[in-house]
């Protein structure tokens, strides 16, 4: 081997190492690659006639319906987990249930819809603020505080209308909010544009382009240092939990409209909405220790999981698809956490 050859080899190896580092540290890029892999994989399965229905653009567009709650709640977990000190919010699903019931009561009581929406958002904000006061000011461990409020909120939601859903005529009319619209021949659920995108941009602006965002990361990375930098640590954390509650309130509006009914167990039935949201946040590169995580990563993770789930539903007959979704979620979560550990250890 000549000297020139060995230097080109070394250069290539260095370039490869750079690429690996880039993929491991830029979570959104890695997820985009994975997303392409998933799309191609299901396309291949479709070509081999393994799917029960075509995995085409129309199907992917309609699958975006389940992206909205998933993505919004994962963003809520992003705010809370980034704020540090073991930040986590188990109660978001219960907030969705309770705020949704408040929304249902207002609409069924003949209030104008925009006013009822405001009430719903305010209810979510208030419930999130309760979490925030408990964790930030009274210094409860977040896992415990939100476990307790999960219990309390879900119980109140169930009792509020004696276990019955509210699905009177005015509530049913809300489904117009989520009716699909025609985008270049594709039927995309309306609330992807009217609710998800504005919220995504808003959270991105708050996290990346506001002083509050800088404070949030500072507090999450090292709250002692943040205290000495004259930041009000408790207030920043309170705002994070309150923001998470607000986002859960938005999800409550979406969920009620989508099902044309305010169900008291909307966010807590089965494993609830909180566990998938936390899973997606972690998959999106949010470190559970706090201070690390991006909006782009979380949004990509939500999209990946949505389209993966949609594909799995087609790959199996009957309820098997939804069972394999559980497996996929678990495996992807452990995989991404292992990836987080490795990339943190190697690239600090």
């Amino acid at each position, binding site marked *: 081997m000549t000297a020139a050859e060995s230097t080109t080899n070394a250069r290539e190896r260095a370039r490869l190492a750079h690429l690996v580092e880039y993929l491991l540290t830029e979570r959104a890029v890695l997820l985009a690659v994975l997303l392409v892999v998933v799309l191609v994989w299901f396309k291949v399965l479709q070509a081999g006639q393994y799917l029960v229905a075509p995995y085409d653009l129309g199907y992917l567009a309609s699958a975006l319906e389940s992206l909205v709650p998933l993505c919004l709640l994962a963003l809520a977990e992003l705010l809370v987990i980034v704020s540090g000190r*073991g930040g*986590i919010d188990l109660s978001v699903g219960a907030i969705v249930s309770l705020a949704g019931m408040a929304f249902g009561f207002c609409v069924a009581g003949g209030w104008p819809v925009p006013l009822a929406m405001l009430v719903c958002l305010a209810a979510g904000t208030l419930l999130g603020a309760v979490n925030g006061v*408990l964790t930030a000011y*009274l*210094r*409860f*461990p977040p*896992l*415990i*505080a939100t*476990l*307790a*409020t*999960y*219990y*309390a909120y*879900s*119980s*109140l939601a*169930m*009792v509020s209308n*004696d*276990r019955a859903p509210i699905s009177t005529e005015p509530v049913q009319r809300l489904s117009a909010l989520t009716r699909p619209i025609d985008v270049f021949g594709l039927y995309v659920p309306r609330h992807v544009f009217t609710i998800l995108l504005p919220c995504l941009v808003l959270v991105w602006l708050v996290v990346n382009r506001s002083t509050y965002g800088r404070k949030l990361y500072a507090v999450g990375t090292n709250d002692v240092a943040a205290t000495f930098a004259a930041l009000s640590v408790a207030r920043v954390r309170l705002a994070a939990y309150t923001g998470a509650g607000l986002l859960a309130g938005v999800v409550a509006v979406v969920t009620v409209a989508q099902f044309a009914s305010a169900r008291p167990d909307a966010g807590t039935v*089965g*494993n609830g909405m909180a*566990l998938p949201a*936390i*899973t997606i946040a*972690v998959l999106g590169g949010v470190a*559970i*220790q706090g201070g690390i995580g991006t909006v782009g990563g979380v949004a990509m993770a939500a999209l990946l999981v949505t389209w993966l789930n949609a594909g799995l539903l087609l790959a199996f007959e*009957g*309820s098997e698809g939804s*069972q*394999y979704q*559980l*497996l996929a*979620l*678990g*495996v992807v*979560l*452990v995989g991404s*956490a*292992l990836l987080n*550990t490795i990339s943190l250890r190697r690239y600090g």
Partner: protein
Amino acid sequence: MTTVAHRLQARRPAARPIEGQELALLGVLVVLWGVLGLATDTFLTGSNLQAILFNVAPIALIGIGMTAVIVTAGIDVSVGSAVAVVMVVVAKLIRDVGVPAPLAVLVAVALGVCLGAINGGLVAFGRIHPIIVTFATLNVFRFVALRIFDGRQVTGVPDTLGSLGGGADGRIWGLPTAWLLAVLLGAAMWWYMRSWPTGRHLYAVGGDVRAARLAGVRVRRRLVFAYVLTGALVGLAGCVLIGSGGLVSQNAGEGLELQVIAAVVIGGTSIMGGRGTVLGTMLGALLVGTVTSAVTLLGWPSELTPLFVGVFILVAVGADLVRARRRKAR
């Protein structure tokens, strides 16, 4: 002189057999039972108390392991799904193969140990945060259970495990066998965590991992032990839940993890690790069981139970926080 007094004072809490939070819990329980006995005719009857103790048994059993896990600053949210796996496997074995009771229990515990070893291995060797690991296995175990259910709930399970169940066969001296088993194992674990070196190491790992490692504690082994023990107890709890047989439905064990964690936390175990006892967990489980029964007997909607559980968690942890602040101030 002052140093001697200081040292004595510092040592006293460790020598006390029962701690403040446990005493307070005991007081709450006594008051609650007294009030409920006066308020209803049915609370302090034998059959109701038997029902409460039996319903508490699975939570207390898993709580024993969960206490160890949380003391090491970990958490296991996968126990509900793990219970579902154990239940469906054992129920099918009993019904379709006719496995005798001792073998069924053995299989259940072995299966639980395997599931726990997956959690423990990932936590100790994968160095992933326990809540992430067990969130993932919560999904995976539920998937495994649903695959074995094969789209149908298991019906017509014979009462092979009746001696652990809630029926008349499942009682010794009028007390539910399952509860007696939980008390026995709880007492053993309480003694182990209190007096054995390896038991104390669990607290060391939870208090400060690095200090524990430098002091020669085999951190990984302790971590795996805590999760495997939880798995084994999940196996036993699964047997109790199958009990007198009948039906095992696909949503078996859903939400159980939160009840167990609630019992542990109400019992005074710190979620940050390093502090807590099995005795507290047993009392916490009993409190949750009492509240559940009381809400039903008072004729309130059963959905109110979680509200009370939530409030109890906040009060218990709040009291602990106040005492921790006082300890620091002293």
